């Protein structure tokens, strides 16, 4: 279980994260919803130790290490002159993984055939899938996927959705997905976390279809109330 306790982050007098407290369980996919600038990426970065936050982020009651996370933050960033397989191999070496199963990782995201292509030759959809493959490589427990379908066409979005829900969801992983795409979030997540102005404003089990979620999102985001309900 990942526990986030009273996490705050202030930059130049502005509260980017305000008293964030939440517990995230293994085996579930969480959807983080909120408008631009709500604090979704900042929350992900804090989990990775990339911000100077106050508060606690614990994994099984121990201070969390960035090595427990697989992440795809903002953009699938790789070395353009290395091939798909070489990029994953390099990632595995940084994580000190002996004999990484790169074949399985690439097969999971349908990129095994493209393993010898340079990263610079991949389409955006392939890059996103490679980013997801990398995030899952090794002994990670928590997966942070920040807008994984950003810039993808409808087929690409569907591919990522199926990938997450049907192939990568497992009792050993806790997956957090941030997105603006309500269709996608409604389809893949077990739990919804609404975030606004750096605060978590609502946490709900996902029992909604797309239309209901759209109405709910509008209600929550236009409500003047701040803080968790």
């Amino acid at each position, binding site marked *: 279980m990942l526990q986030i306790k009273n996490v705050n982050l202030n930059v130049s007098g502005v509260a980017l994260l305000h008293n964030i407290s939440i517990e995230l369980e293994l085996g579930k996919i969480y959807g983080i919803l909120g408008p631009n600038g709500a604090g979704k990426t900042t929350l992900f970065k804090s989990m990775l130790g990339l911000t100077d936050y106050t508060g606690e982020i614990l994994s099984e009651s121990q201070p969390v290490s*960035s090595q427990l996370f697989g992440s795809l933050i903002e953009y699938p960033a790789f*070395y353009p*002159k290395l091939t798909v397989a*070489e990029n994953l191999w390099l*990632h595995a*070496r940084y994580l000190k993984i002996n004999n990484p199963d790169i074949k399985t990782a690439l097969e999971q995201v349908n990129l095994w055939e493209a393993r010898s292509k*340079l990263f610079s030759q991949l389409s955006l959809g392939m890059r996103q899938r490679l980013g997801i493959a990398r995030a899952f490589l090794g002994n990670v427990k928590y997966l942070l996927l920040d807008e994984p379908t950003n810039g993808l066409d409808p087929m690409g979005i569907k591919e990522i959705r199926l990938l997450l829900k049907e192939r990568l969801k497992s009792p050993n992983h806790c997956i957090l997905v941030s997105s603006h795409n309500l269709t996608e979030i409604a389809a893949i997540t077990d739990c919804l976390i609404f975030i606004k102005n750096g605060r978590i404003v609502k946490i709900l089990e996902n029992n909604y279809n797309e239309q209901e979620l759209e109405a709910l999102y509008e209600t929550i985001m236009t409500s003047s109330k701040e803080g968790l309900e």
Partner: protein
Amino acid sequence: MITLIRNEFYKQKREWSFLFLLLLSLLPVLTGGAGAIFNSSTKTLADLFFFMNNQFAMFFPMVLFILVGFLFYQEYKNKTYINWITYGYSKRKLFFTKVSVALIIGVLFAAILLLLFICLIFALKVTGKVSADIPELLTVSVGFLLEAAIIIPVTVCAGAIIINLSRNIIISSVIGVIYGFASCFFIGSEIGFVVPNGFAYRVAMYFSDRTSYYDNPIRATIGGCVISLLIFAILLSVGVILFTHKRKIES
């Protein structure tokens, strides 16, 4: 640390920019060699070394600036910086890895330059265009290696500061060019030993022509060594502090 260094070299696979930098490093010997081949007069080893070393003292700091800038910039440009710093290694270690790789490549470039120079001298000796013997060649080689030993660490540390402050390879390269020219201004000065690159040049020249050294050699040698070490330590410390400084949000 060894794995991190290996990873850095692995990242450079298919990066042809290094070949360009190597060619830039070799320019002093290539131009000096071409001049000697097409010139009908016989030159001395000291003449050729003087020509090569003048250009080396100016060009090599530029090459090193671009080299270390490129190594760090790779993470910023590819946006891999965030991944790179979240693998669980300390930022200090990551900084030292990049600097070590720049030092290794810098030493390698200087060694290739020296080898090429030695080959050129042998080739010119065979064709009778240069008068030189092996002990003399070894002596100037020692001077050149000492010069490289001063220039490489100091310049790499200075370059690392600039690239991490600017995160822009153009700014870093322009400052590298200015740095290369500016350090040459101090070569001729009697108190030029306070600038490591100027001091390094005069040290190298001492091994080929002793009259070209400082008028007060003891003061210059002790002062130059101490100041070079001090500047290296300061630049390295500033580089580490800048890079490891905890930002409110890493990006």
